């Protein structure tokens, strides 16, 4: 029994069958990658997991509880954090404030009208946020405006914000899309470090095979809205169906 169990999930948009009949099981404390060509339904699947979309059929269970019908913030409070394709951070706030928000969310829940305390006098939160910034190597940037950072640093901050909540499942949506090689490698190193140091399950949607094969322990290949195959990276590399469906271009090129 995995921490995330997706059973028979289907989703239609008008006449388009975005997801057919998806079954997926993500084991606890593993890195599980979901790959597939454009339009395979990766993002739709991810959105079904975090509450942005509600699937037409099937069930999504997280740690034995259904996530269906819950709002994104409720699902997050259950222990699922999401990293977006383009880093989603609070651009107009400082790096420190960015980091404090998930700390508050973790401790105080979805809504606490604590309007009369000075947030910088909340030692517990401040220490926790400072610690996270240390861990992310961003302590020097704490007073910077988040919007002014480089894309790589924004990504790092976003991941740090997710980790600050101590999620049990971290979902990453093409975390290195549009990044320069160096930034990509930094991100891979960061994720590897996270994997090694924490009890956390990571599920990653990715285009970049380099990233996938550097990180993943299990890979699910999605094509035309249905999972084609699920296996270890080594087996996926050589799988004929995968080559046909997904790596076809590579084959032609070769």
């Amino acid at each position: 029994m995995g921490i995330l169990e997706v059973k028979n999930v289907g989703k239609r948009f008008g006449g388009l069958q975005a997801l057919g009949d998806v079954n997926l099981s993500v084991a606890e404390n593993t890195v599980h990658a979901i790959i597939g060509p454009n339009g395979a339904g990766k993002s739709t699947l991810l959105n079904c997991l975090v509450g942005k979309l509600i699937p037409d059929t099937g069930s999504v269970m997280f740690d034995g509880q259904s996530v269906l019908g819950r709002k994104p913030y409720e699902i997050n409070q259950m222990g699922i954090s999401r990293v977006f394709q383009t880093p989603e951070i609070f651009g107009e706030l400082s790096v420190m404030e960015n980091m404090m928000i998930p700390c508050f969310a973790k401790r105080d829940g979805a809504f606490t009208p604590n309007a009369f305390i000075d947030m910088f006098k909340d030692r517990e939160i401040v220490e926790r946020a400072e610690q996270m910034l240390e861990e992310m190597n961003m302590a020097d940037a704490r007073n910077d405006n988040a919007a002014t950072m480089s894309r790589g640093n924004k990504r790092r901050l976003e991941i740090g914000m997710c980790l600050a909540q101590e999620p049990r499942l971290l979902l990453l949506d093409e975390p290195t899309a549009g990044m320069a090689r160096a930034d990509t490698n930094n991100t891979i190193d960061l994720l590897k470090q996270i994997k090694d140091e924490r009890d956390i399950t990571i599920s990653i949607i990715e285009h970049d095979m380099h990233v996938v094969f550097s990180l993943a322990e299990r890979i699910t290949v999605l094509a035309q809205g249905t999972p084609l195959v699920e296996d270890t990276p080594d087996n996926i590399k050589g799988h004929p169906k995968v080559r046909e469906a997904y790596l076809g271009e590579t084959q032609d090129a070769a």
Partner: protein
Amino acid sequence: MFGLDKKDFRLLLLVAVLVVLAPFLLNPFPEGSAMAQFNAGYPDLMQRFVIFGIFAIGFNILFGLTGYLSFGHAAFLGVGSYAAIWMMKLLTMNVIPAIFVSVIVAGIFSLAVGWISLRRSGIYFSILTLAFAQMSYSLAYSVLTPITGGETGLQPKVTDPRILDGTLANGATPKANLFGLEMGSSFEWSVGGWLFTFNAGYYVAAIVMLVAFYMSIRIFRSPFGMMLRAVKSNQQRLNYTGLNAKPYTLAAFVISGMYAGLAGGLMVAMDTQVGAERMFWTASGEVVLMSILGGVGTLIGPVLGAGAIKYMENILSKINKEILHQWFAFMPDGIEDILVSLVYPFIGKGWHLTLGIIFMLVVIFLPGGLVEGGQRVARLFKRKKPAEDGPDGKTTPAE
């Protein structure tokens, strides 16, 4: 001090000093001098400054922090005013129950409006709030006349029941008071050529305004305030960080609605009269303009914006041609006439023109509003001194 850090406390102290000394600061010109026209230190205008300051501070908690642009905030001001005047008609001319009830009623009304309007965001939200306010205005002006007085509004009358007050002495008019201290009573101090007026109502309103301002600083610096700024910055990230944006924005909406109600209640306390125009969309637009003119999202900006607009409305509109002739009387006749005709379109009945021009100039040259203007001036003076404000661990909104 008061749970504020040094910088905020200094700001609060500065505002408090300005407010307390306003009767001096706003009356810089001696009586009878040509410049006395520009004196603003008389009770009505000083009261309006602080009352609209409160209104704008509250509006800024919603608009400045969450970015939700309400175009119907005047409705809460109006509802608060009606509640206050009814307290004065039914209960007592003491301002405490009137102000208290106006805040409560405005809070309830804004809860209802906010609960519905916050289902939408952006311009759709703005139009929903506008629609509610316009409906309130239209109904108050027409079919609700028995409750609101319609066109002629409501004023306390000698014949009102006022169950807590004793019967008025023969010939006395009901006057708003705070346990006997009449809001209209003033203390005048004449020194040299100057005449300073210290009005009881103004100081009551000013104390309320300082409390309101203090509370707004606390909200700005609180986790709650940070969440509101997070709503403005990136609602998506907020949702995926396990935070429910809706109650935060609704709370901000209700708080700002209660500030508006407080302003409405104070308006009645200072000047016992309500008319439905107070809820017209131009009144809602005015507070939007005040916030933007002063500097959206800054602590002191909206107060400055409110002051600037009310100053122009009350001072510029009262300058007439005769006064211009007196100003320029030292010039030779021909030049005097030319000067008068050059200035004339911008004052008196043309004060709107000046207002419009100032809006445009400020937004073109000072994108952060009047506050940015102040900062630029401050920077000019500070340039030679080393920056004394070290990093204090946060990006505070500019003051």
